Structure formats: structure tokens, C-alpha cells
């Protein structure tokens, strides 16, 4: 796959501490990772500081990336998600009164997508239902664990896990042609 080959080349250049690779990495992935971080923190200044730290961590710890355990994006996503969760839990963040309450939930999929919708993702998201979108948003974007979602949505843990998986697989089914 061209993308994988390209990413392994990118990783190699990052390992060589090539600054242009960091430049490229940032240009291609910063917005996607910032979306995750910002939705977790809902605070631009803190989110931007976090993004800064995340990219430096990616840059400094690229040798910890193991392709056999997943894609480069998955690895970077974990770093961004965990870092954002840590910031949200920090006293610094709580002092600024950034509530980690889910009650003020806003469906982020209501707004227009950032990317050109060439794969028809918007239509697919509309089809999978409000609960699916909420579970995905809470788990993937806002940094809540299955257990936290279960507690806050008053839904059994097993149900959260199963429904989330089914939601994701239904996206895959509806976009089947892209997964061949």
C-alpha cells in the first residue's frame, strides 16, 4: 500500500531527526490530532499547549513507534488522547474550571465536516443514529473510557462496548467499497 510505504519512509526520516519530516508530519496530522485534543479539553489555549507537547513527544520518542502494533496515526492518536486526558485531570485545568461534565454535550457531527466528504462519511454518520455518534464522540474524541461512558450514560459497560463496536463496524459496512 502506497500510504504505508510512504509512512514508513516518513518514520525513517523522523528517526533520522530530519526536521523537514517533522514539518511534513505536522502539516498532515496536526489538525486531525488537534480535533481530538480540542474536543477533549474544549479550551483552545490549553489544547494548543497540549498539541505542542504531543508533537515534541512524537518527535522525541519516534523510536518507540512499532509498526507491527498499528499505524503511525493510531500511535500518535494514543499519545494525543492520553496527553489531553492527563491535562484535563490536572489541577491546572480544574483550577481554570474546565468542567469534565458530559451534560453540556454538543453533537460535533452536527456541523459540517472539515474535510471534503469524498468518501460520503457525512451521509454514513447520519445513518448510524444519534447514540452511535455520541458513543464515538465520547470515546474517540472526548477521551472518555468505556467505564466512564457507562457511568455517565447510565448504560451497562458491556452494552457500551458492544454498541460502540457495532457502530464502528456499521460505518465500515456502509463504506464497504473503501475497505476492500
Amino acid at each position, binding site marked *: 500500500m502506497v500510504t504505508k510505504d510512504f509512512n514508513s519512509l516518513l518514520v525513517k526520516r523522523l528517526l533520522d531527526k530530519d526536521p523537514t519530516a517533522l514539518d511534513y508530519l505536522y502539516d498532515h496530522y496536526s489538525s486531525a490530532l488537534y*480535533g481530538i485534543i480540542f474536543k477533549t479539553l474544549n479550551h483552545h489555549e490549553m489544547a494548543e499547549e497540549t498539541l505542542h507537547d504531543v508533537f515534541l513527544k512524537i518527535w522525541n520518542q519516534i523510536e518507540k513507534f512499532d509498526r507491527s502494533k498499528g499505524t503511525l496515526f493510531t500511535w500518535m492518536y494514543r499519545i494525543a488522547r492520553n496527553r489531553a486526558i492527563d491535562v484535563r485531570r490536572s489541577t491546572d485545568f480544574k483550577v481554570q474550571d474546565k468542567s469534565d461534565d458530559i451534560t453540556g454535550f454538543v453533537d460535533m*457531527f452536527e456541523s459540517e465536516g472539515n*474535510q471534503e466528504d469524498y468518501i460520503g*462519511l457525512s451521509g454514513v454518520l447520519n445513518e448510524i443514529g444519534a447514540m452511535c455518534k455520541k458513543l464515538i464522540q465520547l470515546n474517540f474524541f472526548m477521551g472518555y473510557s468505556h467505564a466512564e461512558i457507562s457511568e455517565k450514560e447510565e448504560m451497562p459497560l458491556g452494552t457500551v462496548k458492544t454498541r460502540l463496536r457495532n457502530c464502528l463496524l456499521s460505518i*465500515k459496512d456502509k463504506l464497504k467499497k473503501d475497505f476492500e
Partner: protein
Amino acid sequence: MNKQEILKEGYLVAYITGELTSEQTREIEKFISSDEEVKHEYEDLERILEMLSFDRAVTPAATVKKLIMEHRDVQKKSTDHSMLRYMVAASVFIAIVSAVASLYYRGEWQSAERELSDLNLQHQELAEGFQFVKNELASNQVQFDVVNSPDFRRIILDGTPNAASAKTVLFWNPEQEEIYLNSSTLAALPEGKQYQLWALKDGQPIDAGVFDADAASFQVMKNIAQADAFAVTVEQVGGAASPTLSTMQVYGEA
């Protein structure tokens, strides 16, 4: 944990988000690397996550990138002690090299200075030699001029009974009052003695200067305008006010 549990109970999603314990993580990784179905579903979920993330991307402020690019070297500095050590080693090396070089060049410099000093000495010797030759030449030129000049009268002073074999030649130019004297035939004198030339005019001796016998060249004597005769006596060094006639060596009439 079996394959169906992993698939149905959402472990792969939890693995992606990093919610699992390290023990669960190891087990899931084992399945991903060994089971095609698990691996396939994991890759599908990764792909969906990436699609959704890009679909919901938010552009951060431009300053973030600038700061990241500026700060990317900060971490490196902690490991840069090796660079520091290298630089210290390099500076020590440079110090040693320059010390050796300065010793070497000091040696070269000293040797050059010795050579220069030698050359200066040689030059001085040559200059002295040249000056000597030049003086000789000048002296000879004077003698030649004196001998050949029609203005100089050549007067032979013959030996008295005190020095029968002695003979002195005197050149006198009464117009210019100049007197030159060749003392080469006079005998050497004991310590403390000098010859003295006298001009005799109307029986009165006039001091015409003292000279040494061993100076084998023309002696320039005092200026004398008028003389009937010349005589040389032996006197104390520096000369006497009046001649000691008993010591007269040579005598000749002008």
C-alpha cells in the same frame, strides 16, 4: 480471553484508545499478530478512527507549529553532553597542538634569530672590511696625490749618529702648511716614548706633532708654514715643549 471475547466485547477499540491494562494489552497484541480475523478488524477500526479524526479536524493556531519547530532541539540538548565532551576534547587537542606548534616555532624563531645575528655579524665584518679597504684606498690616494703633487716638496731626513741607518721621507706643502711623514724606517720605541717632529726656523724649534714608529703609513703632522730644516727626536709620550737634542734620530734641510 478468547478470540470471540476480544471481538464482541470491544477489546480492540479499547486497545486503540489505550484503555487496557498492560496485561490485557499484551494479550490483544498477541492475537493481532497471530489471528488474521482479529488483525483485520483491528486494521478496519484504525482506519475508521483515522477517517473520523480527519473528518473532524480542527486547525490549530499557526504559532503552535512555529514553537514546535523552535523547541524540537531542546530535548536534544540533554543528550548533547557528548557534543560538549567532544568540544572540550577538541579544545584540549587544539591547546596541545598550539603548544607544540609554539615550541616548534619558538625554536624556529630562535634559530632564525641566531642566523640573523650571524648575518649581522658577517655584515658588520664585511662593512668593517670594506671601511678598512676604503680607508686604505683613501689613505693611498692621499699618499699618491701628495707624492705626485707639484705643490709638495720632498725632503729626505737622514739618520744621525744616533740612528745611522734610519731615513725618513717628509712631504711639505708650504702654501697649504701641510706636512706628511713616512715613518716606516724608524725603529720601534720602548713603552712611554714617542717620536716628535720639529720644524727649525731661524734656529728655533717648532713642534710639528708626535707619531709612533710602528704606524706603517703616512703620518699627518701639524701645520707648518715656514721651516729651514726638520728634525725628529725621541720624547715622552705626548711630546715635549722643546726638543731633547741628544736623542735626535734624523735631520734634513728644507
